[in-house]
């Protein structure tokens, strides 16, 4: 079933994406609203490689290279944006990243090589559901291990209290930049997977609205919760599709139902479904 496969595939890509943003927003507490920009950079740069300069090797190897390119190019953007912006805090950081995300998209829009506003076509179909879930699994594993290491503890300490963290010996700038860069890079990987499963890219996929959608996935599950991000990605990808089947008025109004659900969730449970905890974890104690 191609359609269900497509939804499953998007779920996998969004798991990677929401985890990558969770590293920045949820773990490190740095509010980024430009994540779709990194997603787009990874998607476009990996597709430029596979469309224009693929290596004369089997497709899977090319795909691996594409993933690496997606990671590196987005991570590089992350560094370039992170170095000046991470001095900012809270709302200001959010606004600056929003601005950068939009600038990245405007640059893509004005690049003739990648089709500009028409969209980027003829991207080879080199990734599939196995790639997507292999990567998603690796990212989940990565995040779980990171969370339980000195790196993760330092990053979470920054979220909890920057000043205390710094006075306990955590180099704020280094760890903020680390999570921002790695988060951007992972979004780039998600972008590469997206490009090579959809075979078509359009700048409208990488607007501010999509940054918000990814953010909502993170917040829905709970900032800083890995299982929360997974649940968020699953739920928010599937809901709009389920509403398609509701038929009649509901299907027609489905786009207004999504924001209402969002508002209701925030009113009822502002910390998200899991808070900062993990699934089956209570009061910090692992079961």
């Amino acid at each position, binding site marked *: 079933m191609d359609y269900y496969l497509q939804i499953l595939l998007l779920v996998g890509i969004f798991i990677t994406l929401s985890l990558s943003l969770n590293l920045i927003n949820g773990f490190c507490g740095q509010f980024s609203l430009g994540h779709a920009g990194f997603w787009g950079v990874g998607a476009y740069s990996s597709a430029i490689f596979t469309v224009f300069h693929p290596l004369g090797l089997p497709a899977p190897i090319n795909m691996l290279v594409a993933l690496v390119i997606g990671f590196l190019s987005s991570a590089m953007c992350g560094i370039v944006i992170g170095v000046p912006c991470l001095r900012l805090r809270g709302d200001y950081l959010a606004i600056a990243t929003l601005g950068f995300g939009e600038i990245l998209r405007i640059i893509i829009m004005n690049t003739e090589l990648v089709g500009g506003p028409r969209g980027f076509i003829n991207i080879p179909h080199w990734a599939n559901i196995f790639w997507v879930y292999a990567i998603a699994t690796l990212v989940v594993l*990565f995040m779980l*291990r*990171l969370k339980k*290491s*000195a*790196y*993760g*503890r*330092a990053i*979470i*300490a920054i979220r*909890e*209290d920057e*000043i*205390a*963290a*710094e*006075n*306990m*010996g*955590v*180099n*704020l700038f280094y760890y903020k930049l680390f999570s921002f860069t790695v988060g951007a890079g992972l979004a780039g990987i998600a972008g590469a997977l997206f490009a090579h499963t959809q075979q078509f890219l359009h700048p409208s996929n990488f607007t501010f609205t999509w940054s918000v959608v990814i953010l909502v996935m993170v917040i829905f599950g709970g900032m*800083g919760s890995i299982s929360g991000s997974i649940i968020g990605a699953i739920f928010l990808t599937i809901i709009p599709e389920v509403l398609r089947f509701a038929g009649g008025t509901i299907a027609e109004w489905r786009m207004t139902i999504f924001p209402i659900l969002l508002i209701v969730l925030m009113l009822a449970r502002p910390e998200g479904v899991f*808070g*900062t905890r993990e699934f089956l974890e209570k*009061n*910090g*104690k692992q079961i």
Partner: protein
Amino acid sequence: MSGKTLLKLDNVTVKFGGLTAVSDVCLEIQERDLAAIIGPNGAGKTTLFNTITGIYPPTLGKVTFNGFDLKNIKSSDIAELGIARTFQNIRLFKNSTVLDNIRLAKHTRIRYGFLSSILRDKEFLEEEKRIKEDSLKLLKLFNMEDKSEMLAKNLPYGEQRKLEMARALATEPKLLLLDEPAAGMNPTETKELTELIHFIRDHFNIAIVLIEHDMRLVMEIAEKIFVLDYGNLIAKGSAKEIQNDKRVIEAYLGSEIEGI
């Protein structure tokens, strides 16, 4: 009053815009000192701590720690050099467990790299095991080991203060700065705290400087007292000397002399 000089402030002045919070302060702390900084509200005590820990760099003057000039050194590096502190308004990592609060403080002492932590190699596992054991040992000293898996925010107030001290000690400092450790404590708790501070100094062999309003506590434990008023260091000396200092009495007149 023996041992070598650990911390030295030379003519330190801190200004915020037009406001001078600390003015031309000179003081020295030796190894194993147990000192207190006192003074009325707004005298610049906390600002002095913030300057020592690198949060607000001094506008003028020089801070030297253990022979290092702290000019342009980041807070995190100062922590690594061996200064740890607690905060006036408790700054724990609230949504982390008690154990994780302690483990985080061991941050600068960790040697394994990023790849080790993702691959979970032998180096990582051994070091994490050691850190956990050390942390639990430390918590045991504070009688909190059974609470190691509780979230910090769920601890009672007094234990939050204790945890903050434990966390500061976990960085393995040479100098511990305590910002109003007795604030909000009842007399029994304050008494325990007095013992605890003595214990810390003797067990860890470090210097301690505290900011405190509770004069009974200060007079009981401080071997050296510095008095700040409007950013100026108006007196220093032993408890006896301070109690008889005219300028100090003037500064405190009618307000916080009940403990003397």
